[in-house]
């Protein structure tokens, strides 16, 4: 694992976010924010037969939260909802390929929290 938070792949996703915007008629939509830094993420999913067929995110915040959201959208396309329910911190860290301290970890995990709260149909993802 790299210890460079700002390795090129992350900056690239931040500067050129994939799947950013909104879906026409999402089946699942969820929004949350990180109270410590004001990062905001909205995630929308289009689901057919339990499979994610389209995904989009919107929001603003630091490079870590926004790049993570962008990467995550690419990752989940075509995946069954059930599989998303099991995604965890390790999955995100692996995806990012970086080591993160406790404070910035919140930024990296925000998109996952939003995704899981949406997929599980919860009001808020319990920390």
């Amino acid at each position: 694992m790299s210890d460079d938070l700002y390795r090129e792949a992350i900056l690239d996703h931040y500067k050129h976010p994939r799947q950013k915007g909104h879906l026409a008629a999402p089946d699942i939509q969820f929004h949350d924010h990180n109270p410590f830094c004001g990062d905001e993420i909205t995630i929308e999913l289009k689901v057919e037969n339990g499979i994610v067929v389209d995904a989009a995110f919107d929001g603003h915040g630091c490079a870590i939260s926004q790049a993570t959201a962008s990467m995550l959208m690419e990752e989940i396309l075509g995946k069954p909802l059930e599989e998303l329910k099991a995604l965890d911190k390790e999955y995100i860290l692996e995806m990012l390929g970086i080591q993160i301290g406790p404070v910035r970890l919140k930024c990296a995990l925000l998109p996952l929290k939003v995704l899981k709260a949406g997929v599980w149909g919860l009001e808020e993802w319990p920390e």
Partner: protein
Amino acid sequence: MQDRTELIRQDFPILQRTVASGAPLVYLDNAASSQKPVAVIQAMDDYYRRYNANVHRGVHTLSEEATAAFEGAREKVARFIHAPHSRQVIFTRGTTESINLVAHTWGRANLRPGDEVLITEMEHHANIVPWQILRDQLGFTLRYVPVTDQGLLDLDTLDELLTERTKLFCFVHASNVVGTINPVDELVARARAVGARVLIDGAQSVPHMAVDVQALDADFFAFSSHKLCGPTGIGVLYGKRDLLEAMPPFMGGGDMIREVTMAGSKWNSLPYKFEAGTPAIAEGIGLGAAVDYLQSVGMDWVRAHEQEITRYAYDRMSEVEGLRILGPGPEQRGGLIAFTLEGVHPHDIAALLDRSGVAVRAGHHCAAPLHARYGIPASARASFYLYNTTAEVDVLVEALHKTQEVFAL
């Protein structure tokens, strides 16, 4: 066992000192506040010299390090008391603030006229006064479980005192005066039977014996760092998660909020909802080190050691003429002995013992109702900890004899 104690004593720098009279310190005031091992002092020193910074909101190296250490300490404390999750460990200033927090939040949200809060006659003021203040504001009824002549809770009265009206039952785990270790299992079962919540004051238990808040089935459990080898300025409130989640916040400010607008605010998740403002960071880290230290010694060893000292002290002190020990025999008590000495006021006992280097406390030990129960204004108290020895008990007894000589007519 004494060999082990000798090694332990080397961890506590203060035990090398002498007092004003030149006598070596014999510190028997542990129930008021314990001494600190080097590991604890060092942990805080290290924080201030190497990575002092405000926690939670910081992105830079120091703040990341401080946050990891502070939250790591919370996890250590959670493991130490067997809390299901570190989020249920709320840092306060001490037992007193922990109990006041419950009164201000859970109490204010749940108690109304007609309800009853049951406490006991052997409580520390910290578990009496917050309920009196709240009663005067909300109009519920406050009742007390009486204490027997032997210093035990009079359980026969529970049938009458613990009823459907009882919403909360608060009691001390181990008394700081009579030393009694209360039968938590039975008390909790009785409370459950009428649907009352239970708050346990663990100020004198957590430092001295293994405590498992889940096994005790406590709804709330409070204790202080400074009595368990940790620093001043920090303590803990443990609570069941559903209760803590449902409670309104106590103080308002930074860190405890999720969102603030001019119109209003939303609360942060546990434990931060109850930790407004910059927390006691160095103190949290010091408490973590204290818990590590005690665990390295082993709480069962601590308890066994104190039992040995207490039994020995009980026997030797009983031989002193005119000395009256408050509370039950050594089997039912924690490591402390409060007593009176005929013809000598407790303050004078403490002052004269001090000449021999012996530090004991004198007064009502913040348990005035219990002293009133025994018809005395004050008592003297010797309280032991893992570093005390039977040889120190001998110094105490010798000094008690000298005290009597000074006051002989």
